[in-house]
């Protein structure tokens, strides 16, 4: 199984990548680790005519402290994120969740920017970005702009990135509340989450409960109103529209959301 034919181009700088993308138009796609895009291309679910390889732009692979937030380069691999000392101490939720993506081989190649730009609602890191109040930085032909994580995920495989824009950095403030948890329910270790939940303090987001990662707003409102965690978790499925597939129907996913948010809130409080 191989992808449909395409033209491979290699960028040696961000500027060159943007230039190639501008010339490639709608038929061009950026290739980072390729672990979301290449499987889709093999299945002909994505058929770009031009692939712009940004995998050698090492200037986009970093974690550093800047003006009170943690800046993560978009090309940082899940493996590097999961082992980074600064992420481990300041953003343990992100370090842990990055270590739960796929399997070791996938974490060696897959990147945080690629995962976010792919915008799969079943992916682990988009929900983590929501509860961490991350800001995503995109560069395009007319310069850089910042996009709040809550505005970034628009639908299944759809983001607010414009054609020709490249996600370059993720900025994450230090969490106000320390307790965190990441809950992922799968049949096999390497599978996508059937349902997942990310918790940071009283902020809660759901994996695979709609066409985008979702804030569990009803749970957050209940917690803000003083509800006990177990009572708040009972509202985890409110406002969601989970997919139905071979793994689970709607009611089972709703049940999982309530259970996982309950476990997540309990674990976060035990760490907080």
């Amino acid at each position: 199984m191989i992808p449909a034919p395409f033209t491979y181009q290699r960028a040696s700088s961000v500027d060159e990548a943007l230039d190639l993308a501008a010339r490639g138009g709608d038929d061009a796609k950026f290739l980072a680790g390729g672990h979301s895009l290449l499987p889709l291309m093999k299945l002909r679910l994505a058929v770009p005519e031009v692939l712009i390889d940004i995998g050698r732009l090492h200037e986009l692979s970093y974690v550093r402290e800047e003006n009170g937030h943690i800046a993560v380069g978009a090309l940082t691999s899940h493996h590097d994120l999961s082992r980074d000392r600064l992420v481990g101490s300041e953003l343990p939720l992100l370090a842990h969740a990055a270590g739960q993506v796929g399997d070791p081989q996938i974490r060696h190649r897959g990147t945080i920017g690629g995962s976010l730009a792919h915008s799969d609602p079943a992916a682990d890191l988009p929900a983590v970005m929501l509860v961490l109040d991350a800001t995503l930085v995109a560069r395009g032909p007319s310069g850089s702009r910042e996009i709040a994580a809550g505005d970034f995920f628009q639908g299944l495989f759809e983001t607010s990135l414009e054609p020709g824009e490249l996600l370059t950095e993720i900025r994450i403030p230090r969490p106000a509340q320390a307790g965190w948890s990441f809950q992922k329910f799968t049949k096999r270790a390497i599978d996508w989450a059937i349902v997942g939940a990310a918790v940071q303090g009283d902020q809660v987001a759901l994996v695979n409960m709609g066409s985008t990662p979702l804030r569990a707003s009803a749970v957050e409102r209940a917690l803000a109103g003083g509800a006990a965690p177990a009572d708040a978790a009972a509202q985890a499925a409110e406002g969601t529209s989970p997919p139905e597939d071979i793994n689970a129907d709607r009611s089972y996913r709703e049940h999982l959301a309530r259970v996982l948010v309950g476990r997540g809130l309990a674990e976060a409080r035990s760490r907080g």
Partner: protein
Amino acid sequence: MTVNGAAVGAEVADRTLLVHFLRDVAGLTATNVGCDTTSCGACTVLLDGQSVKSCTVLAAQADGHEVTTLEGLADGDGEMHPVQRAFHAEHGLQCGFCTPGMVMATVSLLAENPSPTEEQVRTGLEGNLCRCTGYHNIVRAVLAAAGEGQASR
């Protein structure tokens, strides 16, 4: 690219996958194509020392990098790598199809964590499936290889 220490160059189609480059161009057929969907790990090789699934890497992405396949583990005299010896001694295989990928994933795992617990071995090999379900001896082999690595230090 450099494969098992030797430079290998060829003009290939842009869409050529690394696993096909290794098997069909470089003639190194230890690396198996299993599921072809980044699931089973039979095609695991080392890219700059880290385990990757070569069915989900373009040959062009590995251009200029160092690739190690199972054929590159033994030393020049044919002496097997400690991980290969451990799989042999502990009978860490049944039909053998997943074995090259298991061995390469193990080399990468032990490079990152030289003395894993049994649980760390099991999670560390979660990207490699054995359809014979021969996991018990595979885990024993990995632990034996780790022990040998410790002893020789």
